[in-house]
């Protein structure tokens, strides 16, 4: 089943690449929907109390200790759900845009989906790394071929920057791999064991090697500078993939591949991570306040949000991790909606500069309303998905350390500041010649945005199912962590 999740999109994308059918978009969309259904089926079959299910473990390159080991537990499942949920929307979000070489485009998107799912279900260190890198290639080409101006330089920076990080992660993984007792292997459990055995010093070393990779991917301050540029030049779909899903790879990496792996390292350096994440929150929000470009503003807000998630994760409390999980889903949905809205605005007004917009509410009330709701999700108003996550996260950080918690809480205020500003500049006021002819949402756009709205509110009102899905896995993870760190001390 898991294998199907991974290879089905791959096969379809290959089909699209090679056969180059006329209806590339339709096929891709259908495929992604099938993928979504498959995931939902898995969710129904998923038993909450066991850990890894639908496991497959076959040797691939034994000489490298590489096995094709995949499996799903609560944490993976939530993220796979997010991925498979967003990809159809992303494919739909192209609307009537005519791409050069559509088959390449949709093929790449599906390949991306494959890689992302792979990352979330891999149970073998090297396999995880492979998917992690593979995910980089399609997104790079999506941004390079269909991106905005000056993309050549910016995307290259993005690629090298992230690659640098992940190569360090590779060193870390190899380091652990070589520490595995007996016949070396990359199996998750074995790596945990190996990491546990290392001396605190070594663990700190490994921690940094891997944390840098994750930090760059998320990205948390100060490893984030590739992100705003890339988000801005990337085509909307690319941005959605990057911010909606790829960003989560970093957090997931921390949760699955860092915390239980080098407990002593995390215990030693986690506080530092929290501090820089919290700095990132304020920093990102502040910069977002003064942005002129709509898309860039969302990019920086995303820095702030992910900072909060990271900080919560490193509190190593069930509350924090659960908050991170739910907030990842919420942020994925919200940011998807946000970029979609940006895309609609940009497409109709041919500009993303906030100052030149205004008064859209007059001509497109429905659009404006949707914007309001998505915005509320982003500023974490209660009864929207955003609140559940941010509440739990701030809760965990505050419990961890009052001052940090208070600072992290600033996101509630600053988020309101830049978001309301955006809304006012773009939507309120009198229409000007740019926005005068702004048409309200078309049916197709409603088909994308309404589900987003519904999900935001639904998760906000009744998040329990999602939380229950990941709770056992998280608790177990922390149990592993506490045992290991205890045993090291």
């Amino acid at each position, binding site marked *: 089943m898991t294998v199907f999740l991974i290879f089905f999109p791959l096969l379809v994308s290959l089909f699209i690449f090679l056969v180059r059918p006329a209806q590339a978009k339709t096929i891709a969309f259908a495929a992604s929907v099938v993928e979504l259904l498959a995931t939902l089926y898995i969710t129904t079959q998923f038993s909450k109390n066991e850990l890894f299910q639908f496991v497959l473990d076959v040797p*691939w*390159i*034994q*000489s*490298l200790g590489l096995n094709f080991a995949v499996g799903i537990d609560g944490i993976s499942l939530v993220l796979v759900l997010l991925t498979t949920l967003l990809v159809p929307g992303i494919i739909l979000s192209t609307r009537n845009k005519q791409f*050069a070489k559509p088959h390449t485009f949709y093929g790449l998107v599906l390949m991306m989906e494959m890689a992302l799912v792979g990352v979330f279900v891999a149970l073998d260190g*090297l396999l995880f*790394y*492979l998917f992690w*890198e*593979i995910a*980089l*290639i399609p997104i790079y*080409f999506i941004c*390079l*071929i269909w991106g905005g101006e000056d*993309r*050549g330089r910016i*995307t*290259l920076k993005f*690629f*090298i920057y992230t*690659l*640098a990080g992940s*190569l*360090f992660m*590779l*060193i870390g993984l*190899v*380091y652990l*791999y*070589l520490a595995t007792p007996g016949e070396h292997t990359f199996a998750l459990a074995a790596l945990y064991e190996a990491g546990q055995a290392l001396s605190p010093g070594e663990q700190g070393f490994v921690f940094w090697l891997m944390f840098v990779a994750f930090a760059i991917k998320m990205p948390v301050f100060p490893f984030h500078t590739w992100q705003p540029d890339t988000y801005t030049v990337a085509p909307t779909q690319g941005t959605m993939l990057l911010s909606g899903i790829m960003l989560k790879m970093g957090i997931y990496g921390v949760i699955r591949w860092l915390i239980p792996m080098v407990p002593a390292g995390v215990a030693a350096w986690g506080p530092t991570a929290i501090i820089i994440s919290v700095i990132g929150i304020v920093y990102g929000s502040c910069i977002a306040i003064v942005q002129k470009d709509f898309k860039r503003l969302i990019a920086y807000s995303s820095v702030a949000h992910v900072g909060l998630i990271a900080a919560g994760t490193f509190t190593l409390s069930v509350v924090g991790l659960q908050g991170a999980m739910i907030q990842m889903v919420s942020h994925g949905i919200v940011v998807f909606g946000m970029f979609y809205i940006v895309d609609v605005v940009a497409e109709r007004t041919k500009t993303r500069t906030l100052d030149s917009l205004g008064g859209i509410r007059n001509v497109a009330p429905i659009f404006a309303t949707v914007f309001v709701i998505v915005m509320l999700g982003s500023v974490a108003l209660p009864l929207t998905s955003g609140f559940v996550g941010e509440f739990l996260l701030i809760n965990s950080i505050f419990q961890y350390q009052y001052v940090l918690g208070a600072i992290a809480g600033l996101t509630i205020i600053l988020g309101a500041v830049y978001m309301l500003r955006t809304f006012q500049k773009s939507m309120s006021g009198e229409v000007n010649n740019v926005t005068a002819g702004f048409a309200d949402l078309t049916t197709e756009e409603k088909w994308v945005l309404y589900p987003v709205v519904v999900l935001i509110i639904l998760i906000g009102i009744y998040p329990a199912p999602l939380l229950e899905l990941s709770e056992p896995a998280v608790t177990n993870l922390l149990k592993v962590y506490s045992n290991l760190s205890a045993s090291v001390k």
Partner: protein
Amino acid sequence: MNALFVICGLGIAALVAEIVNLKKWLTAFVIVGLVAAMATIFIDFGTSTMHFSEMLQFDNFSLAFSGLIVVTTIFWFWLANDYFRLQPHITDRTALVLFTVAGAVIMASFNNMAMLFLGIEILSISLYVLAGSRKESLFSTEAAFKYFLMGSFATGFLLMGIALIYGATGAFHLTKIAEFIDANPAGLPTFFYAGILLMFIGLAFKISAVPFHFWAPDVYEGAPTSITAFMSTVVKIAALAAFYRVFFIFSSVDHTLTRVIQGTTILTLVIPNITAVYQQNVKRMLAYSSVGHVGYILLGFLANATESANAIFYYLCAYACASLTAFAVLHVIGSYNRSTTVEYFNGLFKRNPILAVAMTFALLSLAAIPPLPGFFGKYMIFAMAIEQGYTGLVILAIITSLIGVYYYFRIIIAMYFQEPSAEPLSLGTSTRVLLIALIAISLILTICADRFVGLVG
């Protein structure tokens, strides 16, 4: 062993073809012959035999490398067929190439310094000529001359090294030398070490390790593209095989050698990769990158001489596959417009997707991006190096390979991002098939990596 005979035979046959006028069939005939050679290698595989009073040793190592050499040559003939078609002296060129291959096979399988020496010389002398084979072009001539002059200079050192080692051990056979070393670990005269280092110098020149690499970029650029392809694949493989065979023995005795190799490795990692960044001419850039790759292989050898054979072999497979692809594309571009600067790749994706995609595969593999074989090659070497505690060097290597990404991706950006500067090029079917075959091979190398890693044993 038989493979060697077959190849030499082919070479002579090629010369005969001139007389009996079979030029048009020649290439096909040669390819068939090489396939036959490959077959013999397959048959012999798994056995380990000495030949001619231990002059040649065909164990898995030499068989695997000879096989790699032969296969690469087959593909090379495929991609370079117009190099023969468009220019005179088909037969001579073919013959010379085949002799080179013979030399290469010897370098991969020698057990006696004399054979090493002769192998290198056959290879080199033929190459001097081939490099200069586009006589109307001054660049070609210059390349040939530089290569010859510096090559023979380096040979002097190689021979001096051999002589000193002979003096110290009284033997030319690698096996005997090894025995001697084991016999009296303490009592080795100083000039024996000097001999080792001199040999190292000679071979470092052949594998173009910094600071003995200066000839490489110039010669690669000056020589006809197809010959460059040949040099950067077949010749490099052979040189590295020889290097491994020699220093595999000495790696145990002596620490000055490791220190020297360390220094060379660092230089070879840094300098070519840095220099490549600024190159406008893709051909020359690839030349630098191929020098740079030697650095990684040296790192592997340095990390663990005895174990690294597998990694090096796989690395070379991946490398050969990738650079053949790259040179195939380069060859097409170059043959249409006399130059190969980056501009000529502009918008290639829109003009000739197949070329662009193939080139992309090649470059990604050279840049060691998963899941392409280039990555696994580097990965094995890094893993070994970390295991042996060379973490610092590995980090350096990682930084350089990031720089590598930088210059490889300049081409990719040109192909996908820049607007087309010219009309689509018309491709022959054979080129298309070749490119697809090479892509397929690189995928096979990934998926069945295990098959290849185990080969050397």
